[in-house]
Each structure stands twice: as structure tokens, then as C-alpha cells.
């Protein structure tokens, strides 16, 4: 008898109506979608930078290079500027400072003879000197890890003890030009 009571019938009717309503609403809101996805592939940015160093291999550190000259020692020391990034460098900016006296940073158009201090069949170019501030110089470093050999030469007349500090910076304009590629 209780199954057929009017209140329970009404409740059942409401429940059925609600169920039908929900079903119809879900159908109304449903819309077909389609997607087409690519395979996952890496995209990476390059890096640019250079460092002056007397080391023959990485790690080169991130400090400016300090070269100490003694009063009775040589007046020239050789070092490398290494491309520590992944992009080709067209030029770099050099900064040379000294604790006293003066010094010059020089490049050889061929290859230094570091024993004699000569630049065989080439010319010596001043990259920068102490006291002039940052100087942009074209020393192409076309690949990661490529290097150019420079030297620091004490130019003060008095053979003083001094330390020459060489810093190298690279900004975007000194990196290879942007390119458009496709395949």
C-alpha cells in the first residue's frame, strides 16, 4: 500500500523529470570537437659570451682575467679569449685596467710566436689599452669553444709591478645576425 501512496508517486515523477531534463541539457550542450596535434619536439635558444683566460680548457670561470707583471719579469703575457656560448661571435668588447702604469692588449693577424713576441708575416693590432674604457674589437669566434690568442703588454716606461685585468663582454649586436630558415 505504501508504494502507491500519492506523495511517493509525485516524488518519483519529479525524479524522472529531473533525470530527463539533465539528459536533454547534456545533449544540447555537447558539441563535437576535433584536434590534430604534432609530435613533441625541442626548441632551444642559443647563448653568447666570451671570457679571457689562460686556461687550456673549460671551466674558465666568470671572473675577469688578472695578469700580474713583476718589475724584473717579462713585459708581455699571452692569453686566450674563448667563445663560451653556442652562437657565432662577430666581435667582443674588451676592458683593460691596471693597478699602476699602463698596458695594451694586442692581437696578431696571423699567429703569435710567443717565444719571440713577434707576429710572423702579420700585423699587430691594438685591441684596447688601459685607461680608454670598453672597446669593441672584431675578433671573430665562429663556433662554441673557438678561441683567439691575444697578449697583454706592459707599456709603461718604468718596469713596475702591476696587475692588468682584462674583461670581455658580448652584447646581442656582436652575435651573428638573425636569420630566417625553413625546411
Amino acid at each position, binding site marked *: 500500500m505504501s508504494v502507491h501512496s500519492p506523495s511517493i508517486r509525485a516524488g518519483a515523477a519529479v525524479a524522472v523529470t529531473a533525470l530527463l531534463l539533465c539528459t536533454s541539457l547534456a545533449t544540447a550542450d555537447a558539441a563535437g570537437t576535433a584536434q*590534430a596535434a604534432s609530435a613533441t619536439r625541442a626548441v632551444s635558444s642559443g647563448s653568447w659570451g666570451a671570457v679571457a683566460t689562460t686556461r687550456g680548457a673549460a671551466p674558465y670561470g666568470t671572473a675577469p682575467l688578472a695578469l700580474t707583471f713583476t718589475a724584473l719579469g717579462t713585459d708581455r703575457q699571452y692569453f686566450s679569449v674563448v667563445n663560451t656560448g653556442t652562437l657565432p661571435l662577430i666581435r667582443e668588447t674588451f676592458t683593460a685596467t691596471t693597478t699602476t702604469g699602463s698596458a695594451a692588449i694586442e692581437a696578431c693577424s696571423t699567429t703569435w710566436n710567443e717565444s719571440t713576441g713577434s707576429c710572423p708575416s702579420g700585423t699587430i693590432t691594438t685591441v684596447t689599452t688601459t685607461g680608454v674604457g670598453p672597446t669593441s674589437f672584431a675578433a671573430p669566434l665562429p663556433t662554441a669553444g673557438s678561441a683567439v690568442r691575444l697578449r697583454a703588454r706592459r707599456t709603461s716606461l718604468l718596469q713596475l709591478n702591476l696587475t692588468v685585468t682584462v674583461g670581455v663582454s658580448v652584447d646581442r649586436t656582436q652575435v651573428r645576425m638573425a636569420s630566417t*630558415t*625553413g625546411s
Partner: protein
Amino acid sequence: MSTQETRSATRPNRRLLAAFAIGAAGLAITGGGVYAALNATASNTTAQNASSGILSLTMVNVGTGFSQAVSNLAPGDVVNRYVNLTQGAGLDGKDLTLAVADATPTLLTTDATKGLRVKVTQCDGTWTPGTGAGSCDGTTTVLLNNAALSTLTATPASVKAGTNAAGTTLKLQIALTLPDQAETTVNGDAPAGTIQGLSSSLTWTFGETQRTATTTGS
């Protein structure tokens, strides 16, 4: 004495039950007769076919397309990739979108200013991928211009608002670029928050919805 009285009291009840039974049977027979009616149906003699449409979108690389990684981007670099996007022969689609997912998020896909950007260009002829900008032998239409991937990873961008008719193919050039930067690296040490030397793993997804539902008759 008391037993005889009891027997005489039960006899009228059996007669009454029998009377009810006969009455009920009669009522059932006559009631059935009252509710009986003739029925008729009408149906189509040939079964009507009803089928649902299929919404599908397929992407095919043209040249290397998205199958090849992009590496060592310098600021300002543009890398073009080409894909054909074909609407299946079933249903029309509409509202084409492009989304990008990065499995290894970096500033390349999270920084709206320094990060990667994309341009989508449609050719109504055929793209010829090349080592440079590529070429289209028809008319080009820019569908998405310089959108930051940082936005596409969050919300798909509208690429084409109209209908993609079933069976048609969109021939697309996807130009990925790293915006120019003004970073200076000092003694091999890149500045904080650099865009340099980063890598992301990108998945490109075109999406669409079915054409608008219709009510038809004939």
C-alpha cells in the same frame, strides 16, 4: 452441543465465498469485454537510414614540418615550418584554434615579452618550403600574427573563425621567432633571467568544433 452450533455457523460463509467468486469471475469476463479495442499501425516499408557525421582534422607535415627540433635560436631568428591541415570528408568544422603545450616550460614559453612568438600564414596555393622564407604560389593570408607562446600555452588562440568545409585543406606556414633581446654577457656570465640557453618541448595542437547544428526538412 457446542460443536453442532459451530458447524451451523460456518455454512453461510462458504456460500458467501462461492457467490463472491462467481461474481468476480463474471466481472472479469465482462470487464475484459469492455476494454477490448481494435488496433492499427502504419510504418515505412523501407527502413530509413540514419547516420551520424564524423568530425575529423588531420595534420600532415610538409617538408620537415613539426617533426624536426629547432635549436640554437638567436634573437630575431625566424624558423618556418609547414603543415597541411585537412578537414575530414564528414562534417564541416569551424572556429579553428591553435594551442601549444610545453612539457618542460622555460622563459621561452612563459615570458610574454622575451619568449617565443608564432605567426601562422595560410597559402591558398601551395607552399614551397625553402632554406629561407619559403614561397607561396598563390595568395597568403595571415591567420595569427606574432602571438606569444606564453598565451597559447594558457588559452588556444583563434586561427580561423569561419567554417572549415569538409574535405578542404589549409596549407599553413608556422613561423616561430625569438624576439630580439638586449642582453649582455660579461665574462661568460649571462645576466639574470636570461633567455639564452633554454630549451622547451613543444606540442602544437590545432582544434576545432563541429559546424553549427541545423534543423532541416523536406
